[in-house]
């Protein structure tokens, strides 16, 4: 087994009486693609929030690359190489696609207390940004304002921004939500390319995509991981079938 990149231990978060995360423990090896599935309201987004730093856990601890990050602010985690995409697309809508990705590059190129040079003419920002756009197939749309991009294109742009940050780990929160079948297929192919190079936590409702991509799958129900294992194990797990796949089986 490769080196452990992410270690989560006993993560617990309550919102009033609702337990959104109930003693969650999780270990990810470097290069692993780990999918997290579960019914709506199971606490998947809360888990992503805690990993990225937007939600503070009540107890438990998160270690990234051997370093405790439980109390680090969002931007510090991002600088350490923990990038996330958002479930609801949250881009900079009055910027062009290229500007969006260039910002992501800029975030990881030292501080930005540079007041004078025109950032839109800096090759060290523009070139990696153009490369990331090309990677997701958006090269032709570089100069288009985000407001004028289609929903699917915005989802692709989300991925490009995450990639441009050259993260060590990617938290993908329902990246395929609202995508057409063609765009979904392209994204699945893209994620397959990335496998091994970047460690990924994938939250996704598209069960076919999950089983096609994941090295391991954890099933989250009511804030608790009820099963964790390779796709074959999860498919065969009686508890999972009852709690989750049973409901979703009609979709297949």
């Amino acid at each position: 087994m490769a080196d452990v990149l992410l270690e989560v231990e006993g993560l617990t978060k309550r919102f009033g009486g609702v337990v959104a995360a109930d003693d969650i423990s999780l270990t990810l090896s470097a290069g692993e693609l780990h999918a997290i599935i579960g019914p709506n309201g199971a606490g998947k987004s809360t888990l992503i929030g805690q990993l990225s730093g937007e939600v503070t856990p009540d107890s438990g601890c998160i270690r990234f690359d051997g370093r405790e990050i439980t109390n680090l602010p969002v931007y510090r985690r991002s600088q350490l190489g923990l990038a996330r995409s958002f479930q609801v697309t949250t881009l900079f809508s009055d910027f062009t696609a290229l500007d969006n990705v260039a910002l992501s590059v800029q975030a990881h190129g030292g501080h930005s207390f540079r007041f004078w040079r025109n950032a839109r003419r800096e090759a060290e920002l523009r070139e990696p940004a153009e490369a990331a756009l090309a990677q997701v197939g958006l090269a032709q749309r570089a100069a288009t304002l985000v407001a004028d991009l289609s929903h699917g294109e915005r989802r692709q742009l989300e991925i490009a921004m995450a990639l441009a940050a050259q993260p060590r780990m990617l938290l993908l929160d329902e990246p395929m939500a609202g995508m057409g079948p063609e765009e979904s297929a392209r994204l699945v192919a893209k994620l397959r390319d990335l496998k091994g190079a970047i460690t990924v936590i994938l939250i996704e409702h598209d069960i076919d995509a999950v089983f096609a991509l994941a090295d391991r799958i954890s099933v989250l129900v009511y804030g608790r991981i009820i099963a964790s294992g390779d796709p074959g194990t999860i498919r065969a797990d009686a508890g999972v079938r009852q709690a989750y796949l049973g409901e979703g089986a009609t979709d297949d």
Partner: protein
Amino acid sequence: MSPVAKGLSKAASEGAAITPRVALNIAVTATFALVPIYAAFSGDAFALTLFTRIVILAIAALSLNLIMGFGGMVSFGHAAYLGIGGYAVGILAKEGIGSGFVQWPVAVASAALYALVVGALSLRTRGVYFIMITLAFAQMIYYVAIGLDRYGGDDGLTIYHRSRFGTLIDLSNRTEFYYLCLALLLVSVYVVWRIVNSRFGMVIQGARSNERRMRAIGFPTFRYRLACFVIAGAMCGLAGALLANHTDFVSPAMMHWTRSGDLIVMVVLGGMQTMFGPLIGALTFLVLEEGLSRLTEFSNLIIGPFLLVVAISMRGGIDGLIGGVRRG
């Protein structure tokens, strides 16, 4: 070529022709440049007084546009910086320090320091709360000025000598003073233009658009917004020093909250997130105010609805009306 002319010609070459926006900017700049000549030939000394005020308040509006337009930080206490800059000049003059080389840096530094304190507290909040905190601080400074008995309190403080700059420039020569103000305005436009398009400016605009996302991609947004807030405060402090020299007088009234409102109106009227919008806004607002107040004592009855129409129908202000609304 002057920086601004270079900027204009670059904008022109990018648009392949003189766009309506560029034409408007040139017209505004030319109008400003020609006012003293007009005043000299027509003998209309008041025109020079009015336009000096317009140019100075345009600097203040420009600084507000930097944080409000580009940074999304709606400061409702911007007149406080005018007051602080003005009082720095007034107080030093009264205490016998007449050199502009001391007065002006103190004015700028005091305004920047005040911005640092206000920003450090207010930038932790959002929306209405941010507006209320900036307003509360400005009100505090306003009442502090009223309490300064030694410096005139409520009645204000007369400045008997304008800032002295040796033989370099004589501020009591109204034409020289006007051109100094205009030069500082154009330099400020250029500085804002550079800042907005720099890496720093990208962070500021990104944080306006989506601060949560900015943090997620790795930007500690607070310190950048605070730095921007301080830059704007310093720039407005300079405008305050100019204003004190222009009126030879400072009083708490220059910090009244309605003055802060006027500055917001100028920015919105001219066009937020544009380089010349604050200039156009200051020009339109003050000329309108002056002209209407000569016609009727109910000038606000006309200005109010006019602003309402602008706010509702013209997204992008006058700049947007003539140059077309641009996004980005």
